């Protein structure tokens, strides 16, 4: 059964159905919601089936399909490894929650809204499942269209500015990548991602290819200093749009790094770790400080996303298995936690129609259930043990320590600053006195909202307490990437803080003793 094709095409069909539903406006809206929810639930079921049927012992692409439908330009070639599987799982998990979150808050042009989300789901799954490099590009870029419409039609006051910025920023990054892809395929004679990952490109070409891909993925990630589209897009997007943006779209950059940059340009990756580390270090400190002074809740969480994403890049470019595994867990964890935080903001935004932090306060008294959930996700974002954030941050720092202690040191300050802005946010929203009568009158979570948030709580705890479930499928694929990186000549980075017991070894170190790493935490 071509399960991946079905997962990609089913939402497209559903989107067409939703867009052409009969009936009056109210009837169409109701039906569109039901069809969209049913479709995303079927997708979730298919995703769970996919996970269950997945062979966790191999790094090979599974559920492979290949049809030369669009020869000679590209093939309909699909297949997933553990990394893609987990990100698909994240996408199909968040999608029904997004639909539920928009159930009441979106009242304008509901069928079009649901159709845009369903198309989005299809394109995201396609991005992770594509094995032809140009098919990947097709899905990767295609995602811009529904997101542009979602921000532009259903966004807030400055939605038009934000949608343009989002679209053009990411498009500019991507076209440079496309030039590189065209060159690579001409060089290697194959557009298959697996084959390209085994091709040894000349070292000087790798440098330029790496930078071209970097231009695209750094924007998607987003890394400092090309992160500025993110806060604007987040603030203006509707709640569910923010969830998808933070939950899945931001993962495209990290996925791109691990799928393309690391295995295809291992020499350039090893040579340019200084660039990535420098940008990551700036991002963690700078965006954390910016997050501290935000008055808008969504903007604060958006900046915290940039900081968390810097952990991902830091972990990936540690170029060892702990770092990369940590980065992957960080992506999954951030997808859940920041998605949930945006949903939490959405809950109170629906009631008071403002994201101004100063307009809230005292919610621990008036909305106890809400305050509890918000506290949980605040802690998960900070990286409290037993939540997924802890596993992610610990692994990233563990891996990074072996490559650059300085980078580890600076990134660790991000955890402290993160605790600062998140706890302060919580204190201002949940404690103290309510800012006004209308704040005090807000009702607590209703059943629908609990149904949205509860699954994320469970997933976050599961990932924090027993991360093996999530890491086992990814391990063979990550081992393959690390094998490609083994023995590459590293750039000279300040590896030694003199206190470090490790030798400043210019070749990539093998697995380090955990005892050393534990000291840094």
């Amino acid at each position, binding site marked *: 059964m071509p399960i991946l094709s079905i997962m990609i095409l089913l939402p497209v069909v559903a989107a067409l159905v939703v867009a052409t539903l009969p009936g009056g406006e109210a009837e169409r809206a109701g039906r569109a919601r039901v069809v969209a929810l049913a479709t995303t639930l079927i997708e979730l079921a298919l995703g769970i089936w996919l996970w269950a049927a997945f062979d966790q012992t191999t790094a090979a692409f599974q559920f492979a399909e290949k049809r030369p439908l669009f020869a000679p*330009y590209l093939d309909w070639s699909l297949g997933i490894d553990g990394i893609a599987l987990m990100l698909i799982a994240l996408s199909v998990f968040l999608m029904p929650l997004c639909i539920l979150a928009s159930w009441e808050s979106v009242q304008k042009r509901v069928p079009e809204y649901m159709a845009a989300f369903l198309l989005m789901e299809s394109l995201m799954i396609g991005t992770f499942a594509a094995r032809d490099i140009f098919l990947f590009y097709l*899905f990767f870029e295609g995602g811009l269209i529904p997101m542009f419409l979602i921000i532009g039609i259903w966004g807030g006051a400055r939605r038009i500015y934000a949608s343009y910025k989002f679209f053009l920023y990411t*498009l500019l990054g991507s076209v440079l990548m496309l*030039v590189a892809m065209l060159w690579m395929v001409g060089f290697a004679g194959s557009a298959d991602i697996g084959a390209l990952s085994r091709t040894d490109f000349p070292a000087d070409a790798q440098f330029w290819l790496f930078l071209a891909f970097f231009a695209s993925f750094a924007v998607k990630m987003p890394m400092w200093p090309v992160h500025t589209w993110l806060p604007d897009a987040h603030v203006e997007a509707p709640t569910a749009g923010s969830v998808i943006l933070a939950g899945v779209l931001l993962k495209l950059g990290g996925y791109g790094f691990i799928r393309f940059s690391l295995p295809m340009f291992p020499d350039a990756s090893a040579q340019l770790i200084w660039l990535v580390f420098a940008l990551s270090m700036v991002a963690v400190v700078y965006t954390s400080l910016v997050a501290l002074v935000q008055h808008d809740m969504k903007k604060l969480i958006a900046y915290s996303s940039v900081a968390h994403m810097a952990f991902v890049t830091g972990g990936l470019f540690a170029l060892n298995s702990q770092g990369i595994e940590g980065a992957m867990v960080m992506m999954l964890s951030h997808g859940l936690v920041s998605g949930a935080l945006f949903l939490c903001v959405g809950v109170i935004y629906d009631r008071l129609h403002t994201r101004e932090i100063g307009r809230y306060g005292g919610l621990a008294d008036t909305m106890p259930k809400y305050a509890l959930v918000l506290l949980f996700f605040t802690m998960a974002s900070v990286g409290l043990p037993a939540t997924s954030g802890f596993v992610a941050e610990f692994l990233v720092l563990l891996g990074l320590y072996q490559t650059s202690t300085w980078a580890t040191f600076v990134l660790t300050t991000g955890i402290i600053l993160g605790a600062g802005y998140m706890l302060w946010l919580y204190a201002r929203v949940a404690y103290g006195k309510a800012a006004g009568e209308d704040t005090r009158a807000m009702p607590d979570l209703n059943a629908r909202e609990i149904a949205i948030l509860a699954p994320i709580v469970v997933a976050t705890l599961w990932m924090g307490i027993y991360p093996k479930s999530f890491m086992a499928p990814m391990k063979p694929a990550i081992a393959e990437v690390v094998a490609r990186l083994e023995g590459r000549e590293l750039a000279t980075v300040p590896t030694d803080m003199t206190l470090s017991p490790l030798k400043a070894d210019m070749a990539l170190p093998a697995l380090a003793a955990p005892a050393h790493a534990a000291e840094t935490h």
Partner: protein
Amino acid sequence: MHPIFASIAIAGPETVLTLGSLAALMLGTFSGQGRALTVTSLFAVAILALAGFTLLDAPAASTIAFDGLYVADAYSAYLKVIILVAAAASVLLALPWLKDSNTGRFEYPVLMLLATLGMGIMVSANDLLTLYVGLELAALPSYVLAAFHRADERSAEAGLKYFVLGALASGILLYGVTLVYGFAGSTQLDVIAGIVSGQSERSLGLLFGIVFILSGLAFKVSAVPFHMWTPDVYEGAPTPVAAFFSAAPKAAALGLMARVLVVAFPGKVAPDWQQIIMFIAIASMALGAVAAVAQSNIKRLLAYSSIANIGFALVGLSPGTPAGISALLFYISVYVAMTLGSFLVVLQLRTADGRPAETLADFAGLSKTRPGLALAMAVFMFSLAGIPPLLGFWPKFAVFQAAIDAGLIGLAIIGFIASVVAAFYYLRLIKIMYFDEPAGAVESVGGPVNGAMIAACALVCSPLGMLAMSPLALATSRAAAALFPA
């Protein structure tokens, strides 16, 4: 049998079009007052279809006719299919407008047929003189068509402007032809190629000849720096005429340009014209992208968009390889569908006071008032912007792939960056249609035929159109191979 009959048989489409246009003139004159337009238009479409059917019978290998003046090969056959389809669509889409605007004169389809005949000759020209005859035969009816709305000052101005500048370009072209003849000793393309490759050193006179010919042709395809007429003519000419100008003549002139350069000037002179083409391509892409940003008239915007698109298509010509020509043909095919579709939507809309919707502001909130038309227009705009998975991305992909395979990476990077700038104004129209509130009621006029054509174009440009890429690639690579003697 006299060889002239064999030649006439080889030039099947042109023969049909010649006789057909004369017959159409008769038919229009002798059919009754009220019906002349409809009858002649339908007859013209039938003639175009018939001309297309004669292509089925075309010889598989390249066949020379009229003592080497004319060639029928897979390349010309492919382009003629596009030209005939675009011309037939242009005749049909004008019908409601012609009936409406009381200029319902039956000469319109006849002029279309004559222009199409000229274009057929253009893409089959194997001699610089045939080229000139074809070009003029295509151009003269076009001048008349541009001024067809003769009561409207803007239309008359467009016709006059087009005529004066077009005559100038023809003169330049003709001057180039004489130079080439003087320095190469022949006007027949393949003979020129033989002589040029025999010359031991670069002939400056020949280079001048190439430059002049290219200047004349650049005017016809409206490439920078010979593009100035395009926005004015598109804006002034009646919308159906502008739609026609943006499709079939562009295909013919690009096809002609590729044939002249690749067949007559291969080998060591190729780098000379490749530089010029690269410059024209870069300038067109850049200017088309930047200048359109400030436009508020949809027809001017589409004119700049067509300039930019010509630039992208010329990227395919730059390497002068079979893959590049194949990509160029692919580009032309998809471009015709996108531009015809966009103009069809523009033609369809009337503001509340009955004025044709021509400013961008008239499109405000179209997604609420006319969701179907807005969706089609959005498909065309995203497709013109080259966003996958819409079909419009893939021709860009193909031309840049050809350029990169030939080592022209800088050209590809500039082109892609220009496409990002261009995306801005395509997005602007989508923003106006989808994000803004409706300004007023918008009427949708035009019959079901136009509606069906819009739907067909939108379907082609949608991701479903990607399924047509394999057969198209097969056909274009066969057509391109015809230009490169084995």
